[in-house]
């Protein structure tokens, strides 16, 4: 299993990056920063291209005239009504899986795992919990700045070691 939790902050700046097991290619710090910025943008776009399904009753009189695309603009719904549209949450490639978890305050956690790793949600929840405990409750952590909290590193490492 290999995992990189990368909390990126609200503006897309990388604030933490750690590799637990080799598996992906090593990148320079700068590349990781660029990657985080790119992902931040892509994440926003993936939300905006959510298919919009026209609502059936409102469209019936207008749509019979060909060539107009009027109905789509007024009333539409998302495929999963009731669930707010999010950006990318899970990406699958031949070599790894990427899980993205966005907190209510906009911080994103990116976890890269081996395709065979199960229970990614559990790992993500635990990371979030540790982040809330050892980063957010630390008086020496400045918001939006890179995370340098020794207790966070220690507990995260210990927990993941205990799992494998």
């Amino acid at each position, binding site marked *: 299993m290999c995992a990189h939790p990368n909390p990126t902050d609200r503006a897309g700046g990388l604030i933490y990056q750690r590799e637990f097991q080799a598996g992906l290619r090593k990148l320079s710090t700068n590349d990781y920063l660029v990657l985080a910025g790119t992902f931040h943008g892509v994440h926003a776009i993936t939300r905006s291209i959510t298919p919009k399904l026209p609502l059936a009753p409102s469209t019936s009189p207008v749509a019979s005239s060909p060539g107009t695309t009027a109905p789509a603009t007024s009333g539409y719904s998302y495929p999963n009504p009731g669930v707010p549209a999010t950006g990318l949450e899970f990406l699958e490639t031949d070599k790894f899986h990427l899980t993205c978890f966005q907190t209510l305050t906009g911080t994103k956690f990116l976890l890269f795992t081996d395709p065979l790793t199960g229970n990614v949600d559990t790992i993500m929840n635990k990371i979030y919990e540790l982040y809330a405990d*050892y980063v957010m*409750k*630390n*008086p*020496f952590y400045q918001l939006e700045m890179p995370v*340098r*909290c*020794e*207790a966070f590193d220690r507990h995260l490492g210990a927990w993941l070691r205990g799992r494998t």
Partner: protein
Amino acid sequence: MAAPPRHVSMLSISNSNTGAPQSASSDKPQTPQPSPSPQPTSGLRVPSNRKTIYDRHLNRSRNAELSRASFAYLFAEMVTYAQRRVTGIQDLEKRLNEQGYPLGLRLLDLLFYRSTSTSSSALSSSSTSSSPPNRPLRILPLLHLIHGPLWRLLFQRSADALEHSVSPDTPNEYMITDNDPLVNTYISVPREMNMLNCAAFIAGIIEGVCDGCGFEAKVSAHNQPTEMWPSRTVFLLRFGDSVMEREKVLERNGVK
């Protein structure tokens, strides 16, 4: 001892706290306010039956638990507050110590109150040898009081070790060890401040308790991490000369 200013600040705090509910409740007959329904004043909220925390029996919240998270956030803010315009690590530790000191003074009363009222039942498991007198007169009972009952009141467990300095030059030094201080659970001190230990706040509480008992002392917190306990902290208690002299007299007279 810098006690007077500490007392002043602590009094003013308690006045403002207790003052708010009183004035709010006594408002009713005097001032005919146009909107009597919800009080627009923010700040302390007073329950409708006027039972504030001050009206409650002191033993009622004896076994009450406090959210560890809310304490952690509160303490983090306290550290941040203490950090403003400090000149260095020692200054910061001094401020944290000063925040804990009045707490220690007041806790002492509560501690005595609770330990006497239930001494018959709770004493069986306690580590203190005899039924505690209302106030320890010698150093050792005081240290046991801190190590046991005070620690249990604060953290629901005893401290992990109690030692006397082995060096003959410093007979007035005692050490109380906590393997994992509650206040430091979520704190990672930046590398450039690695001498800092935020448990200086606890040291302040201990200092307050010692002073309240009439033992002049300086207490400081020191990092002594081990492999197993990365945030292990030693509280160093240095008693003043007057205390040591009194100790000798009391020993000669056989006071325990």
